[in-house]
């Protein structure tokens, strides 16, 4: 419950500022996307980045619906949002932390990865998209009797703009 944290892929000890629980139905994706992108705007992200954060969340929720719950429409998914300002992350001025949890069957985090991009075929892009958009993204198994997976995603607010392809070297080591 310590307030100071230096890891970009840890779950904060404080209560989330916004928590969304939704049933595992594709028709609710848009509600989650629109909530995330407008909250990201309020946290200081530009329009384009806010849209990308909504895309990353959409991809993560789609994967829970398809792989986690095998499209069962009545299972819960939690999406929790914190502004980064609440914590002390080394060298970071602000940003957003988004944690997604489910009660689906557990898989080894190492197995959650996209196809090789050069091998063009339908699908196999979601995890790549999430990792490209986020500053850090980590899958883990939840502990506790309900099982389920957790995805911890963080995006830091860039003070100086950088080109789309470049990654901040300081963050590379925290990526999963």
């Amino acid at each position: 419950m310590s307030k100071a944290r230096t890891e970009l892929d840890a779950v904060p000890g404080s209560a989330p500022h916004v928590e969304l629980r939704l049933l595992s139905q594709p028709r609710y994706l848009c509600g989650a996307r629109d909530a995330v992108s407008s909250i990201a705007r309020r946290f200081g992200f530009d329009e384009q980045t806010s849209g990308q954060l909504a895309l990353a969340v959409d991809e993560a929720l789609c994967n829970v619906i398809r792989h986690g719950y095998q499209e069962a429409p009545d299972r819960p998914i939690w999406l929790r949002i914190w502004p980064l300002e609440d914590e002390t992350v080394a060298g970071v001025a602000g940003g957003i932390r988004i944690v997604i949890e489910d009660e689906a069957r557990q898989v080894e985090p190492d197995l959650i990865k996209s196809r090789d991009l050069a091998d063009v075929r339908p699908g196999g892009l979601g995890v790549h998209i999430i990792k490209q958009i986020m500053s850090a993204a980590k899958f883990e198994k939840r502990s506790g009797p309900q099982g389920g997976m957790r995805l911890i995603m963080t995006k830091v607010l860039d003070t100086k703009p950088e080109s789309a392809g470049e990654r901040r070297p300081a963050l590379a080591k925290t990526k999963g």
Partner: protein
Amino acid sequence: MALQVTIEIKGAIVVVGPVGDVDLNCSREFQGHLKKVLESRPARVIVDLAKVPYMDSSGVATLVEAMQIARRTSTKLVLCGMQDKVRSIFEIARLDRVFTIVPDMATAGA
């Protein structure tokens, strides 16, 4: 919910125009439309994305599949009118050079 899609046949050219977000909620429906259009083996299929403000990877997967079918049947598949937000996902997936992407309907050869 139903995805609205306009389909316009101009001789050997078919223009497919989805309207609205193409996400997991309707990508299967979009796939159905594209497959049906490709079955008739037109010379050219133009997917007009001008009215698609958002697409996720399930929508992109549908277009990749359509491209693979089109190649087999020697149909030319062209994407046009892509909004910036949608272009961004093609760039992240490095598919912006795999597809033929043109700015507007005129360039698409409609």
